[in-house]
């Protein structure tokens, strides 16, 4: 059987000959009717040829490079059964207005078949400010839910069984604080921290590279991330303490290869930090998870996801000497590409999201968010989010793609593109090693400028017509009025400020002060378990500390980082 995958020399010779003959015919035909484009390339501008053959994967070793699902190097997927036993988690990113508004949305999504929660916070929460901060003016509840205190967290998750459902929280510099609120609230409700499952994004490195929710300089940011990894390993064993994210890197304009390489290198950095803290790699690496963007170029995304698993497995085994297969397998969440959506003819976004979601499924994702058609303007309306959720359910249950594991394996093109992704990502990884690691590279503006170059290049390709976006540079269309765009009332800002003020007045001042003193002592001490911020934070938020009060303490202890504003 295997002979057909690995051709003999005689067979290769014949293939080469026949390929040459085909190429002659192709060129002849093009004289009558030339190719439609001067150059065929992916959305990341990776050139693609007209045809791929066994010659393109002649050097492949089935056992080393592809293998079986659930087995090293996990090219074909992280579980042996994949979607035949359990579908991916349908996890719609949701957050709007107040905790009650978002809680209502959570229940709406669960009632329509969503299988995991994902929380979007508003900008003040993401940046570590309470709603009453002068810097938060006009932002409350606009791009997510406003969370200041444990009381907000309690109302956010009211009526949800936190041991049954897993919760993802997109929060970065203040991740430790919001996680402490989640744990403390869950325990207040009678749930055990040992049985809580979920994810905090907590990926500080990609903030400097792309997403720009900035608070502390890189070094102390890494210290806090490692505190959460250490605490999770000991206390919350079912929690994913970092979601190492390519999504935002890609949205900022990176190519697929850059997304892959920078994200994997961020992962390398977190593993190094964990080891420096004294953890063994197999103790914590299994709780690291990843987050990919599924962009508009179908095969490129599938190849990227397949390559990402193989890359990570090899790095964990070869670079870090991991022994436990769980440390080597890359589990990931995927979100369809927000930046591929158009304000013009927004119903077309349903089609874009569908193909992107299909790529994520064929790429073997563990969970998925599908963008809503109106998400290009605003947080999605109920009407639009339901179409997006139904899109996943149709892919899962109607079209048959979940029946066969990694169905594109063995495709000459997909395998060749998977190899290409790995090879080019490895070239970046070597470059980052040469620069002295990710923190040094960030300080030199290296990944930031690589992404800015790619973003500018893509924009020029759109303007020249080299790349096509329907409704934007071909079949031009005006932006219409959508009937169901969601509005967030500016009045909720005042209400939230009042609520947080009342909450602060009602807390036990002595207990609060003691808890904050302990948190400060730990921040000021050298990084180690005795100075881990997490136990102190759980007590502080229980004692009524607000997010901003904890972040204020961080800022005093560790200094602040502001966007250097290069372009």
């Amino acid at each position, binding site marked *: 059987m295997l002979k057909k995958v690995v051709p003999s020399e005689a067979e290769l010779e014949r293939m080469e000959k026949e390929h040459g003959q085909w190429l002659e015919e192709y060129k002849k035909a093009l004289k009558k009717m030339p190719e439609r484009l001067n150059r065929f390339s992916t959305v990341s501008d990776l050139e693609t040829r007209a045809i791929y053959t066994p010659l393109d994967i002649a050097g492949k070793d089935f056992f080393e490079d592809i293998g079986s699902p659930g087995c090293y190097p996990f090219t074909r997927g992280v579980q042996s059964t994949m979607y035949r036993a359990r579908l991916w988690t349908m996890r719609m990113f949701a957050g709007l207005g107040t905790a009650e508004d978002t809680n209502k949305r959570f229940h709406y999504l669960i009632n329509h078949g969503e299988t995991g929660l994902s929380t979007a916070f508003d900008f003040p929460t993401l940046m570590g400010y309470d709603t009453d901060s002068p810097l938060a*003016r*006009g932002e409350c509840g606009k791009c997510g839910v406003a969370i200041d205190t444990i009381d907000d967290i309690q109302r956010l998750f009211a009526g949800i069984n936190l041991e049954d459902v897993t919760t993802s929280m997109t929060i970065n510099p203040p991740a430790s604080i919001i996680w402490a609120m989640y744990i403390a609230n869950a325990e207040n409700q009678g749930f055990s921290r040992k049985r809580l499952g979920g994810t905090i994004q907590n990926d500080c490195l990609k903030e400097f590279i792309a997403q720009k929710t900035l608070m502390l300089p890189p070094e102390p940011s890494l210290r806090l991330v490692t505190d959460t990894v250490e605490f999770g390993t000991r206390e919350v064993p079912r929690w994913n303490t970092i979601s190492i994210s390519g999504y935002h890197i890609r949205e900022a304009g990176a190519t697929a290869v850059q997304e892959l390489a920078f994200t994997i290198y961020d992962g390398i950095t977190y593993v190094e930090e964990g080891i420096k803290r004294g953890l063994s790699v197999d103790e914590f690496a299994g709780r690291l998870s990843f987050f990919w963007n599924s962009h508009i170029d179908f095969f490129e995304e599938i190849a990227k996801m397949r390559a990402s698993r193989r890359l990570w497995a090899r790095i964990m085994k070869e670079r870090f000497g991991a022994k436990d297969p769980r440390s080597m397998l890359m589990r990931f969440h995927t979100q369809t590409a927000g930046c591929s959506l158009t304000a013009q003819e927004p119903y077309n976004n349903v089609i874009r999201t569908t193909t992107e979601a299909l790529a994520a499924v064929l790429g073997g994702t563990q969970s998925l968010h599908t963008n809503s058609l109106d998400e*290009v303007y605003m947080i999605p309306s109920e009407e639009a989010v339901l179409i997006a959720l139904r899109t996943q359910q149709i892919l899962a249950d109607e079209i048959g793609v979940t029946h066969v594991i990694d169905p594109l394996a063995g495709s000459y093109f997909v395998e060749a593109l998977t190899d290409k992704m790995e090879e080019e990502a490895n070239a970046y990884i070597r470059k980052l090693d040469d620069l002295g690691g990710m923190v040094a590279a960030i300080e030199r503006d290296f990944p930031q400028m690589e992404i800015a170059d790619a973003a500018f290049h893509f924009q020029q390709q759109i303007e020249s017509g080299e790349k096509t976006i329907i409704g934007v540079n071909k079949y031009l269309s005006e932006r219409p009025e959508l009937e169901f765009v969601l509005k967030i009332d500016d009045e909720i800002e005042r209400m939230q400020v009042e609520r947080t003020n009342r909450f602060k007045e009602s807390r036990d001042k002595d207990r609060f002060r003691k808890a904050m003193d302990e948190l400060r002592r730990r921040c000021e001490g050298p990084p180690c378990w005795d100075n881990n911020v997490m136990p102190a934070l759980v007590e502080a938020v229980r004692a009524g500390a607000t997010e901003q009060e904890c972040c204020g303490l961080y800022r005093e202890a560790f200094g602040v980082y502001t966007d250097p504003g*290069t372009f």
Partner: protein
Amino acid sequence: MGKDRKLRILVAKPGLDGHDRGARVIARAFRDSGFEVIYTGCHQTPEQIVNTAIQEDVDLIGLSILSGAHTYSFPRIMELLKESNAEDIRVIGGGIFPLEDIPKLKGIGIREIFEPGAKLKDITDWVEQNISPRKAVAFEGK
């Protein structure tokens, strides 16, 4: 001074919004069109933006925002320019705005709003045609 001077543009990101792809792309496009460009980086308050605009003696502020917080920051910036007697610094905006907000923003003196899909060339051409350098304020003051 006058017409020979290069146009000076401040590209600014008001509020806590971190979506800076558009701001960085347009800053490059302005630079490539021969304008002098200063970029604030993310997370600027209206006060910081107006102070920078005055200190850097710019002719135009280009505000980029995708978070919906323009309902606070844009009017506040226009107010601060007025209070600082710097109304001759003109302001344009780019990003995502509910359609009904666009006439309101123009009503408070924002010269133009560029929506998703706007071409770089259209924006740089618009600036070339509609924005001339400010009179040298310090010079005239004496």
